[in-house]
């Protein structure tokens, strides 16, 4: 008996230090590197998901993308276009200095001056420290979605920036060497930055003084960019990395069927849609069936738009082209965005006969020939999606030529024009609130007033315009909900675009890792649990 106890004790002793010594380390890999660690110098979503480990946003996010207290514990609208943010007490930066209201003011002003964030924070006119722990932010409008925008406002230490000559956002095309903040960081986030080498790896260590909860057990984490997909998957299967954050669709089955590995999915905060020219009198690159030029714009006719919505089977695309790794969307909003209305989220039913009769009514019974501009990169399986759309429209007599374009070309076509009557594109409202979908991408485009500036297909509808004008001036929640619903319904009825699906974020992991997913593609390292 005694012997057994001694043995057990000895065993416990032997195991305990071993477990301690084996601090949990997470190695995770993705396609592209984090471009910079300066939180105001890039809006690339991979880069943001990496510097978010080190820098906290003013307003926090739950795993469901809902707003939560972050560095600001609370916020309220004071009237007069002013929002007040209450700053959390007792937060320290990684270098040990305390977080002050001055740091918040400094960070907001720094981010606002960055050209990556002007469309998000450009409306802010003034930031005032109104008390020890409060900051007032004044904008040109009441800006009801400002708290949600602040989930993308990353807070930096002012004294640290002063010491290291990093007061300004590193500017492209600047003379001289590299800014300090590109490879060094000092935030308040759950992880400290150990090193950042864009070519090789970004290394983090747990922030022992983190103000928030840290339910996971990760002590160090390394992000490894591995561009080649087969190599990335091989690195996972050979155990060199614990997790791959963008598993290619074709490898899902392989990873899932290998023992010791699993696959997790979560809809991404972006949806794919096909945009249709809503304003031009003559559609671009569109012809009659005999090949002669068309003298009209079929897409301007709401019946044609509805016919397309009936003819394009988004379920089939999600199922076949995306191999099930997609969530079909029915309205211009997705879960996780402010203003999403779940009960409205119903797709137009796929109905070929209905589509044909609508086309007949509109005078296009014979169909027509048109060109679908299709970006080849940036989003998942775009070329296959475009081909599927072409095949589906062929069933109702519309002959679609797919014009594949590399991303820089595609982007150039839109921003310098827009010069497209029919294209596929992915959409995320900049502020993560549907309000932005209305004001930026659906409102009648007017370059003078910069309204609807990202409305690439020149969609135009009076109800949507009204909603887009009223929403930014409406604070009352109930009134806002009514406006969201009115706008979303009008947009769906007039087919602001043929909504397709949200692609899934797909992670491949070893069974030892428990990691919750979030729509903005962040691996919340503080929540990751690694078993021995």
């Amino acid at each position, binding site marked *: 008996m005694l012997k057994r106890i001694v043995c057990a004790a000895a065993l416990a002793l032997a195991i305990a230090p071993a477990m301690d010594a084996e601090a949990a380390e997470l190695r995770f890999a993705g396609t*592209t*590197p984090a*471009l*910079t660690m*300066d939180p105001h*110098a890039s*809006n*690339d979503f991979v880069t943001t998901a990496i510097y978010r480990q080190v820098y906290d946003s003013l307003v926090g996010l739950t795993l469901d993308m809902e707003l939560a207290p972050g560095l600001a514990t609370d916020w309220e609208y004071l009237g007069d276009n002013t929002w007040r943010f209450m700053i959390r007490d007792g937060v320290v930066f990684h270098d040990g200095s305390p977080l002050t209201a001055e740091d918040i003011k400094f960070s907001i002003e720094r981010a606002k001056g960055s*050209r*990556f964030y*002007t*469309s998000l924070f*450009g409306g802010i006119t003034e930031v005032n420290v109104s008390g020890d722990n409060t900051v007032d932010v004044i904008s040109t409008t009441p800006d009801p979605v400002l708290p949600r925008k602040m989930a993308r406002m990353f807070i930096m230490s002012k004294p640290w920036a002063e010491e290291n000559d990093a007061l300004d956002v*590193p*500017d*492209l*095309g*600047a003379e001289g*060497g*590299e*800014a300090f903040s*590109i490879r060094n960081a000092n935030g308040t986030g759950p992880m400290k930055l150990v090193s950042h080498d*864009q*070519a*090789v790896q970004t290394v983090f260590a747990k922030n022992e003084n983190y103000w928030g909860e840290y339910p996971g057990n990760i002590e160090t984490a390394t992000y*490894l*960019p*591995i*561009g*080649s997909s*087969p*190599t*990335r998957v*091989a*690195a996972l*299967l*050979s*155990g*060199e990395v614990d997790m791959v954050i963008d598993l290619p669709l074709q490898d899902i089955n392989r990873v899932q069927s290998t023992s010791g590995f699993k696959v997790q999915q979560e809809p991404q905060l972006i949806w794919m849609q096909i945009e249709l020219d809503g304003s031009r009198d003559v559609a671009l690159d569109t012809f009659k069936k005999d090949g002669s030029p068309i003298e009209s714009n079929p897409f301007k006719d709401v019946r044609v738009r509805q016919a397309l919505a009936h003819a394009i089977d988004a379920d089939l695309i999600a199922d076949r082209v995306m191999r099930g790794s997609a969530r079909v969307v029915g309205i211009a909003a997705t879960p996780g965005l402010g203003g999403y209305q779940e009960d409205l989220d119903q797709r137009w039913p796929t109905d070929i006969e209905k589509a044909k009769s609508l086309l007949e009514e509109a005078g296009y019974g014979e169909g027509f020939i048109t060109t679908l501009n299709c970006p080849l*990169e940036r989003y998942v399986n775009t070329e296959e999606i475009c081909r599927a759309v072409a095949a589906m429209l062929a069933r109702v007599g519309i002959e679609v030529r797919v014009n594949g374009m*590399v*991303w*820089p*070309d595609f*982007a*150039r076509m*839109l*921003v*310098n024009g827009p010069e497209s009557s029919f294209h596929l594109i992915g959409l995320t409202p*900049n502020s993560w609130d549907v309000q932005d979908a209305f004001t*930026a991408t659906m409102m009648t485009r007017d*370059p003078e007033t*910069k309204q609807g*500036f*990202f409305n690439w297909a020149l969609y135009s509808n009076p109800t949507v315009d009204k909603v887009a004008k009223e929403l930014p001036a409406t604070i009352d929640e109930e009134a806002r909900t009514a406006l969201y619903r009115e706008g979303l319904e009008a947009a769906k009825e007039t087919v602001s675009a043929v909504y397709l699906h949200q692609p899934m974020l797909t992670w491949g992991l070893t069974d030892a890792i428990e990691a919750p997913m979030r729509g903005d593609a962040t691996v919340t390292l503080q929540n990751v649990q690694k078993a021995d």
Partner: protein
Amino acid sequence: MAALIARRLGHGILVLFVVSLLAFLLSSLVGDPVASILGLNATPEDRAELAQRLGLDQPFFTRYATFLWNAIHFEFATSYAAQRPVSDLLIERIPATLELAAVALVLSLAVGIPLGLLAAVNRGRWWATALMSASVIGLSLPTFVVGILLIFVFSVQLGWLPSFGRGETVAIGWWTTGFLTASGLKALIMPALALAISQVALVARLVRAEMLDVLRADYIRFAKARGIKKRAIEFSHALRNTLIPVITVSGIQLGFLVAFAVVAEAVFQWPGLGLLFLQALGSTDIPVISAFLLLAAAFFVTINLVVDCLYVLVDPRLRAGGALGGGPTL
């Protein structure tokens, strides 16, 4: 001889000039860097301001002149994506690529030369023919296929070698080397092998052809007639004369290896110049794209020049005033 070298140098500079123009032209065709940097959600003012900031609103020749002037001083502006000086990035990445190319070259010579010799000496035997036929397969297998096969066998199935990266490196001044650590050496094996395989076949075929030529030469027959042992003739007389062209070719090969390293680097996430170039293409990072193209051209030109000089040293006929003027050029 000096005249010859001066003329070669002149050629080289001309080539570099043309490449610089092409590189610059190409990089202005790959897309709109402003749209790539800012994405779609930026205001037109921001776009215009950034274009001005980057000098993209200047006329083509003004931009080209600035680029050329800076390039002469080894200054290549700032990378759009990394926001760091391009020259820093290049210097950081050069050691990885050169080490990989050098190991691949040594590997291809170490395997290719004996293989070629065996095939030449044993000409006509079935296995020598089979060997040469097999080398055609090596020659025609694309590097990325070889790379992925290697990864599948040695990383996933056997778990012996790392599938990506360079392992631990040791910094010696600005140079980082993977030769001094176990993980660095292990990481080198597969990328170097993938890169060397097609070159092995090339070297083997070249050695075989040269060797067969030499073996037919008169002095070999005389040596045979004098009763010198077959092995001594083959390895002492014939081999030495065979290797002269092989050495010249391998110089040029090093240039090819550096260029082909792009593929191997992409497959193995090898942090060298090729990977930098591919990433730059993906993000319309014009300063990096044009600097890489120029650097690659300079590398080729330099190697060519060195090879030409070596040729002059080796071949006495060229030393006599350069009347022949020839010499291998690529």
